[in-house]
């Protein structure tokens, strides 16, 4: 455990701060270069947006599936499909989307012959916004899986009590359901963020390593596509761990506040 998980992480930290003549900030300073600033910004934006998209869409689908009067079997179908899609690993997923929405994808060409050229309109599957759409394929099912138990935990009596007191549907969601769900939503956000943040196979297969994302930059450094010291890779990786640590710390703080009022 220690040898293969903690030690590598520590080595990263040490490597990130040590030069040929003792401790140095040289490597960390290279992170400030335009290239790596972009990578940091893209990675964080992509993770945050795909997490928010996953959160919203997953919640909407879970709500629809759990609605009374939903067709029978819909729930089982949704949960089993979500389990598969959330585990549908990176490389095949990337190819499925290239075949669909790539420059020569079937949907793209079909739209083009219908007079809608999405690539001329500025869309690209190989950009951060395109990646957000691809990431949604595993983020939304993941959200569905984690949020369904929480939604089921909402007691019908609360809703009835709220309506007895004259609350509208909006007021019920705003003052009852949302505060109850908040800790679960926060936890789901962190999970989705981390999931997207460390995703490597999907963007790599989509762009052949030509997009400014942290995991891609690290792998380019490690496999020698760019002639630079491995210390930069170590510094980048340490930066990733730091971002995850910050996200988890914010989560811990927010969660304490969010669940404080519950006895």
């Amino acid at each position: 455990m220690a040898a293969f998980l903690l030690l590598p992480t520590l080595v990263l930290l040490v490597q990130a701060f040590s030069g040929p003549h003792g401790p140095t900030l040289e490597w960390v300073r290279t992170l400030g270069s335009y290239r790596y600033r972009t990578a940091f910004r893209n990675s964080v934006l992509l993770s945050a947006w795909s997490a928010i998209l996953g959160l919203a869409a997953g919640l909407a689908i879970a709500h629809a599936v759990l609605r009374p009067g939903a067709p029978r079997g819909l729930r089982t179908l949704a949960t089993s499909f979500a389990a598969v899609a959330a585990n549908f690993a990176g490389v095949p997923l990337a190819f499925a989307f290239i075949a669909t929405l790539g420059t020569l994808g079937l949907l793209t060409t079909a739209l083009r012959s219908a007079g809608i050229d999405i690539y001329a309109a500025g869309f690209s599957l190989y950009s951060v916004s395109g990646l957000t759409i691809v990431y949604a394929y595993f983020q939304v099912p993941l959200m569905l899986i984690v949020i369904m138990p929480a939604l089921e935990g909402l007691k019908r009596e609360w809703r009835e009590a709220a309506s007895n007191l004259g609350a509208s549907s909006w007021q019920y969601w705003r003052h009852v359901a949302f505060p109850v769900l908040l800790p679960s939503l926060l936890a789901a956000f962190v999970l989705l963020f981390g999931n997207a943040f460390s995703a490597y196979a999907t963007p790599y297969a989509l762009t052949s390593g030509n997009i400014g994302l942290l995991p891609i930059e690290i792998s380019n450094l490690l496999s020698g596509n760019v002639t630079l010291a491995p210390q930069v890779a170590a510094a980048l990786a340490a930066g990733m761990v730091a971002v995850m640590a910050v996200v988890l710390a914010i989560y811990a703080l927010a969660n304490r506040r969010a669940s404080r009022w519950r006895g």
Partner: protein
Amino acid sequence: MAGVMEEARGPAPAPRQRAIALWKPVRFGLGGWATIVIAALYFFAPLVITGVFSLWEGRSRYGFAAYRGLLADGEMWSSLLLSFRLSIETIALGLVLLLPAMIFVHLRAPRLRPLFEFISALPFVVPAIALVAGLTALYTGPDWLIGTPNYLVIPYFFLALPYAYRALDVGLSALDLRTLTEAGQSLGASWPQILFRVVLPNLVSAMLGAILLTLAIVMGEFTFANILLFRTFAVYITDVGQSAVTEAAALTLLSFAITWGAMLGVLATGRGRTAQVGGAH
């Protein structure tokens, strides 16, 4: 729960009933249908299109050429076998290391459980790409370890750890381990007998869940294999995708089928019907 709800809806006073009826149409509703249809389109379209694509033979001819080509490709089989072997090894390592430790913690040291839980969540904080950077920096030898694909089993164990841990933890928590072992002891069973004839048979479904999750994760894992230059199934798919797109589409469907099989197995064996999630994106 359901009974209580039925009762609450039954002979209720009129105004209350009206309030409920106002807010909760029993119909599925337009919004519900719209959500489901949009979601279904988004999730099924890529699969269907990939299927169509894999049958494409250029121009307007369609057929199974891509599949035939793959079946004849020895490299596909060797990479698929390598991935499969690695998943078996990871599963073995996981069960040998994790299961005894977890049974011990549940039985003798419940106070250590939070610590265990924390450790099992750690791989989540360290992204795979960061871990592989650390590993390459730390270990440059010995050759018998890092020179063979078996080296991958170690990082794969950590990759699967959070998911395997959760699956086993659910199974163990559902058992009254203490009573079971005490009953076994009072009937004169030895420890190995208790372990193999009492505890493990009760854990079969949890173990199957952990095994299938690990299988799904390792079969699709790309990060470590790609950086450490081993030709696993996912790496092979990527290589194929750069030259032969229809074959790549066929492989995509095959890979989806593998995941599908593993997950259906997890759902069928899982006690709580709760889906689980792997981490090989």
